[in-house]
């Protein structure tokens, strides 16, 4: 192993980790804006940096700063190292799972096949299940070390809920292993190909439903947010404050992002775009780029113009100028693109690495779009459904999901045998 290998390895890890980390505020923003949209209100839209509000995205930064500077309350008589360990472990478990998730299809550059992923692990899904189940320890630690009856109840709920739904998760995954003949997320995604009805969401609908339900439970999201259960037991994190408290939620959102990316790879073909397989895209890369360039230029100009014309005196400070400050650069960028098309177009469109670049961009966009779409289902469900009760959660996991998963496994094997 040489320095080149080490630097590529480090680059992979840093890029993927950075991606997950930067998606967390995006998802929090989606959650808050989504909730506001569902509940007939505006959501966050006040905080700004030099007038830039970015539709409320700046609030996430403000929140992070506020939480960092908040007082940390540590209940008397707790086991201090464990109190620090619990949120760190939660965050670690949620983000480390991303190692096995592919964010783009394989592309060949300079004779090497590269994929935007940390590693194409042979036992990728097993790794995901293993690492994500560490999250249960975090909640257990947080609840038990707090020395509070409420957090203790939360911890007991968390422990029994997580282990119950891990079984359902495993059962649903088994059926996918059967179908794909591999445990690697990259292989399972590749196996589905670009044909829409070969995607596992359609080939394995029951496994999909079980997996989604179990994922909700594993991420402890409403209707399965019993460990938190804020109106009942106040939560396993009742003794946590400031950033230590927020880390549990960062972990929750990281869990949703990674989980959604896993679902995208397992059930929605990962980087595959319906009816446009990788070879087709690579072969037509030049045409795609030739069409996309002018469209991008026009869209940038029009979007910039429409944003800029929303300028209105409302706040009496820099925030009023936000539409102009965003719209004008967009228009300029669009115009520049259009002008550059004539002199530079041919040069760029005929470069050797264009097919790889186009496949990569399209594949990455597909993964990102699928991930965020699935994550938005989490948001949508949270603001729609009431919470289960503890006994119902357990009954649902053991009496419905687990038998259904077993049945699905047997039926899948039978069908595969029948079809040869």
């Amino acid at each position, binding site marked *: 192993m040489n320095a080149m290998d080490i630097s590529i390895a480090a680059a992979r890890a840093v890029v993927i980790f950075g991606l997950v980390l930067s998606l967390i505020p995006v998802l929090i923003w989606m959650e808050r804006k989504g909730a506001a949209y569902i*509940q007939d209100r505006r959501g966050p839209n006040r905080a700004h940096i030099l007038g830039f509000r970015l539709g409320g995205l700046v609030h996430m930064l403000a929140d992070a700063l506020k939480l960092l500077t908040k007082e940390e309350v540590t209940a008397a008589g707790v086991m201090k190292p464990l109190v620090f360990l619990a949120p760190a472990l939660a965050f670690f478990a949620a983000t480390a799972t991303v190692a096995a998730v592919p964010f783009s299809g394989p592309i060949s550059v300079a004779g090497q096949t590269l994929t935007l992923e940390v590693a194409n692990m042979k036992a990728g899904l097993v790794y995901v299940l293993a690492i994500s189940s560490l999250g249960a320890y975090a909640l257990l630690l947080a609840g038990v070390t707090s020395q509070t009856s409420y957090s203790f109840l939360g911890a*007991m709920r968390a422990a029994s809920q997580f282990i119950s739904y891990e079984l359902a998760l495993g059962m649903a995954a088994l059926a996918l292993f059967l179908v794909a003949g591999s445990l690697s997320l990259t292989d399972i995604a590749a196996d589905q190909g670009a044909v829409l009805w070969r995607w596992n969401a359609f080939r394995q609908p029951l496994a999909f439903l079980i997996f989604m339900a179990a994922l909700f439970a594993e991420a402890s999201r409403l209707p399965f*947010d019993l460990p938190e259960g*804020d109106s*009942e037991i106040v939560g396993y994190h009742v003794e946590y404050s400031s950033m230590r408290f927020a880390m549990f939620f960062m972990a929750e959102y990281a869990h949703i992002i990674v989980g959604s990316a896993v679902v995208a790879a397992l059930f929605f073909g990962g980087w595959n775009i319906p009816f446009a397989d990788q070879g087709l895209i690579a072969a037509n890369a030049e045409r795609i780029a030739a069409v996309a360039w002018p469209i991008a230029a026009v869209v940038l100009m029009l979007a910039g113009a429409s944003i800029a014309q929303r300028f209105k005196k409302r706040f009496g400070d820099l925030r009023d100028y936000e539409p102009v400050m965003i719209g004008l650069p967009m228009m300029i960028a669009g115009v520049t693109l259009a002008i550059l098309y004539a002199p530079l177009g041919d040069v760029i469109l005929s470069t050797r690495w264009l097919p790889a670049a186009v496949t990569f961009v399209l594949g990455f966009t597909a993964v990102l779009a699928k991930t965020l779409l699935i994550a938005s289902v989490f948001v949508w469900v949270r603001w729609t459904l009431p*919470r289960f009760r503890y006994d119902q959660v357990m009954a649902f996991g053991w009496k419905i999901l687990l038998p259904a998963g077993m049945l699905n496994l047997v039926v899948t094997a039978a069908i595969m045998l029948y079809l040869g």
Partner: protein
Amino acid sequence: MAIEYIKLLEERLGDAAVESHSFRGFESAVVRSGAWERALEILKTDGKLNMLTDLCGLDHPGEKDRFEVVAHLYSVEKKKRVRLKTRCPEDDPSISTSTRVYPAADWFEREAFDMYGIRFDGHPNLKRILCHRDFVGHPLRKDYPKEKRQPFSTPDTLMDEMEILDPCDRPIVRSSDRKILDGVTIARSTIARSHDSRFLLNIGPSHPAMHGCFRVLVELDGERIRNAVPEIGYMHRCFEKEAEAHTWHQVIAYTDRLNYVSPIMNNAGYCMAVERLLDIEIPERAKWIRMLACEVSRICDHLVAVGANLVDIGALTNFWYLFNAREQFTDWIEALAGARLTATYTRIGGLSRDIPAGSNAQLRSCIKTMRQAIKDVAAMTKKNRILIDRTHGIGAISEEEAITRGFTGPCLRATGCAYDVRRAHPYYFYDDIEWDVPVGIRGDTYDRIFVRMEEMEQSARIIEQVLERLPEGPIMTSRRDVVLPPPHEVYGSIEGMMQHFKLAMHGIHPPEGEVYSYTEAANGELGFYIVSDGCERPYRARVRAPCFPIYQAFPMLIKGHLVADVVAIMGSLNIIAGELDR
């Protein structure tokens, strides 16, 4: 009205039935203290007076039998009421308990003990209820100084009560065969069992799902409630003591703080009681407007109750839908009374001001928003599997049980009993307009939620009809011994000025007597038992808060359920600490 009950008592008790009298059409019977329990038993079994709506104490310093106990009984089928009174001497202020006859009397008797020191022999758990356990003296006695402060900060462990109440894994003790321990209270030191092995948990006073400041100590088996002891009094503001120290008019502002979610209904209830005492008929327009304001308040109250209850169950979004509508109704209340929360809107003899211009259009648009909100919420909840599983059969109570425990309002109607004061004893013009009394079937959390939802629709119907039929006319009575004269008379005639002076300086002087006046507030029958000795202040102003008996039954409702159900049931009962603790 209810003379038959007096006859029944005289027949059966003979000498022990001392006397009877009637004031403003309400029959009272006075019995000897020794015959108290017997009298109640006769009235319950033979007189079919199945509900004890209120029981309270009274103090007559200087008289031979200083303390008086007053019970108000009601027959839901016959729609008849009677008042039963007895006296006990100062040196031995004790009478037998009525909990064996009416289980609802439990807390009422504890309150009478707390406030007056009247001892109820045979009561299963006679300890202070509103005041702190270390409180010295009895605050509602006339000789207890109003200014005296007794600060306490150590909370009660409640372990003595935990011993008395039956955990649910023993046969559940119902009202009919309730086991009563002899002796009064068990001292805290005599607790025999060790508590180390039990998992006890305080829910409240500072808990996200407690709608106000009250507490229930539960004993858990995993998450199942084995036993529960409620504690109230965290928000006790001595309403009744304050009322005795203020003039008849000043008390109105205090009533705002009873059920603070729908204050106008408390204002109207109190004013109605004083008007009945004074024998005043308020003008027609005032009656219609009171109905209007009360129904708007009822909608506001139910919107909060349902919204908050759904939040407790985890369905958060519904709260915003319902609150949007409430916000608009509250805007109207602000235009009407000048305040959003502490309205102090009604006056003795009428109203403080007429409805604002444009009320018709404003209220109709409010109703439109409300109907849309209810439609949206019903779509999200009514057939939602999770919500149904969470609420069906949870905290259920039978009709009979609910009546003996003194339930009224939506919580009683959810059991199937169609008792609504507006229908059973119509006041104002409630019998002139068309509306229905929605009832439930099972008396569980689900029914309580949807009875409230349907009641909002009925209130909207009432509002629409009131808006159509609202007559022109004065909004204050013309009785000069109650109402300030108009300015031109004050400044233009000596009689007017003298009248103004007399009223402003000395207030109104209702005749000696007592009334029990009851209205249908958002949570049920809101009763005001008012005693006047002819002075400018109430001699006794007792509030029969609908929450009080309902919260009393709370431990029974939650036993055997899970922690998550506690908050769901709590929300559906809609306990308001302001009127619970007064």
